[in-house]
């Protein structure tokens, strides 16, 4: 084990005599930096530049300054897409994550029989691609022939024409993504729960704390770093929602654009209407929102660490 580092070290020392800094680490990192510059920084700068122009290919381009951003502010479709995305995000964070935590708490009990089976079953939907989830739920949500309406109609006389994908697009999307990701988030919580010291819980119990108080004052603070991380991941993932509504709503925003998300609007504007400048402006607004969320996460995490 020790021969290799010694050899590399001596090699670096040889080089460091000739150069003011060791070159090998930089050379090793060069492909990464090259990739970051080429595929992240350059597109980032280009897209900002693009957001100030109206374009049609490289040949036809005109400067519009902040025109795209101004138009965005008064574009009702942009606001519809933003509202839908925020509603979906709230749905994901407020429904999906508590559900994931509940499942994690349930499946963390050591005496539960079939724990592994339940864990695998709940995690497995995440292995299904979003496109297939869209196709599956398109069939499930069908009005007359869909599984949900048929089953509920047979059981409770539910309206067999219940318009899931017409009047209840956002709840349908939240149901589908909850099915897909609840197990995925559960795994994060489960990992966090397994790191909570059992002694702390026992001590709290000896002090007379009931189950809720043990959860509130022992478990929750202990899993908070993972919790805030999962919230941030969910927010970012929710803002990127595209494939599922695209498939479920046949490439449109659905009736009255109830399923139009920011990324769908970006796609429609950039790749269907061909206005790459306007699409870049949408992308930048989205990046700013997500940047604000990341900063919020950082602030919350810092406070948690201090506490």
């Amino acid at each position: 084990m020790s021969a290799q580092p010694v050899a590399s070290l001596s090699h670096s020392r040889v080089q460091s005599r000739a150069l003011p800094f060791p070159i090998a680490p930089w050379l090793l990192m060069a492909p990464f930096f090259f990739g970051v510059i080429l595929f992240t920084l350059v597109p980032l700068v280009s897209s900002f530049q693009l957001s100030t122009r109206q374009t049609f290919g490289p040949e036809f381009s005109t400067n519009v300054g902040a025109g795209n951003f101004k138009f965005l502010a008064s574009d009702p479709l942009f606001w519809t897409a933003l509202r839908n995305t925020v509603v979906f995000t709230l749905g994901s964070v407020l429904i999906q994550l508590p559900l994931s935590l509940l499942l994690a708490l349930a499946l963390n009990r050591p005496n539960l029989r079939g724990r592994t089976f339940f864990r695998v079953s709940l995690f497995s939907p995440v292995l299904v691609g979003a496109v297939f989830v869209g196709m599956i739920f398109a069939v499930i949500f069908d009005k007359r022939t869909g599984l949900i309406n048929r089953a509920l109609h047979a059981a409770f006389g539910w309206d067999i024409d219940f318009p899931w994908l017409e009047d209840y697009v956002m709840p349908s999307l939240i149901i589908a993504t909850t099915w897909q990701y609840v197990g995925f988030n559960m795994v994060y919580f489960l990992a966090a729960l397994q790191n909570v010291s059992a002694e702390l819980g026992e001590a709290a119990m000896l002090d007379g704390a009931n189950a809720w108080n043990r959860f509130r004052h022992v478990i929750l603070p202990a899993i908070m770093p993972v919790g805030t991380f999962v919230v941030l991941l969910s927010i970012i993932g929710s803002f990127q929602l595209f494939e599922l509504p695209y498939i479920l709503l046949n490439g449109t925003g659905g009736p009255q654009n109830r399923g139009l998300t920011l990324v769908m609007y970006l796609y429609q504007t950039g790749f269907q209407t061909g206005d790459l400048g306007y699409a870049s402006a949408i992308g930048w607004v989205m990046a700013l929102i997500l940047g604000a969320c990341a900063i919020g996460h950082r602030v919350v995490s810092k406070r948690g660490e201090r506490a």
Partner: protein
Amino acid sequence: MPNHRSEQTGQPPRISVFWLVAAFALASTIGVLALRTERSSAARMWTFARLHYAMYVPAVEEWNKTNEPKVEVSLLGIQAVEQRMLSSFLTRKSGAELMEIERRIASRAFAGPLDGVGFLDLTDRLKAEGLDQKINASSFTPWSTRGRIFGLPHDVHPVMLGYRADIVEAAGIDVSKIETWDDFITVLSPLLYDDKGLRRTDRFLLNMWETHMDTIEVLLLQAGGGAVDPDGMPMLDNDANARVMAHIAAWGHGKDPIAGDAPYFSASGNRLLLEGFVIASFVPDWMCNVWRNEIPQLRGKVKLMPLPSWERGGRRTSVWGGSMLGISRDAENHDQLWEFAKHLYLSPELSRELYTKGDIISPVKAFWSDPMYDKPDAYFSGQAPGRMYINLATDVPPRYSSPFSLLAVERLRTIASRLASFAKAQGNATPESLLPEARRLLWEAQEEVMEHARRNRFITPLEGEGS
């Protein structure tokens, strides 16, 4: 390479991680470069339809025997064709020399200034060879923008109603009495069926819903409305659009609903057609082939009839779908590629294949006298669909493409849905009671799309702005 042999330990020399990574990077780079395939000198053609591809392969082989340039035809998914086409136009890098595209995609190719359209302008060639007269006039309009034609039409695609003749005839109903949409409702309304007295209609007269944008457009075009005018500008706010939108909402959610939702192109929709959930559906010529393949159980149970018109003596058809063959502006050998395009699209052989294999009638008027179109079809209960569609072909309404088509159509989709919600809220809505709201929504949408149109500086340049 430095020698890492340690004299003290006597261990064998070790290659540093750095050189290992470098060697791996070099090997993989060489590997990737070696995988590059050489581009053939043949002209490339993309098509999106399996049926078309199967028909084109023999015709292309025939062409390649004696002509240059050789052509290679490839079958791609419709979205792949769309994205590749847009990428090649946007970057001006070579895509395919020939592209067969579907109608909705065309307007995307027309989004920029006229001299930025990636397809070769065929207007002068068509006129010089008299093809603009030989081909059905309305077949050119989807491939035209700002007065110029960019594609050779593949089809006409008139629309009729396909109806459950077994159910209609069993009820002793004579559809020949139907001339207008009002007649349609009056004559067929005895077939509306309330299952088990649940006060829920279980058999509707028409397969039409506010979410079926394709069929909404069929009705709008039939009535003389649509999304964009011949100059390519949005024309949402007009009498025809308001009337049709009000009817669609009332048919679905009004006082006496007659329309049901059996989604087109889906297994659930096909099943509902089989169950007789709807009596009549919109059937363009190509849909005959879709039904034949996807719902063979309807053989001998369905018939076709011309669309009821919006007023007596009015238009009895409309149009749905369409394809064109375009030549890339950046391709070499425009003249030879033009000859190939004609060889492929305008030959009597292809016209026969198109009908016998795809139920699609040719846009070339001279071929319409072919007796194959008169052949009775057992699927459609002995009718001759080809002749029926041809009789309607010259009456197919024009539909125009423009950079604003997509935006305008999206707004129409939203209006249909909002008006349906309004009708539901009203409870006892009739087309007349919905008309003012339809008008208001159309006006709003028109203003909104015009805002986008005014923003497009390539089409409506602002004074003092250069490009």
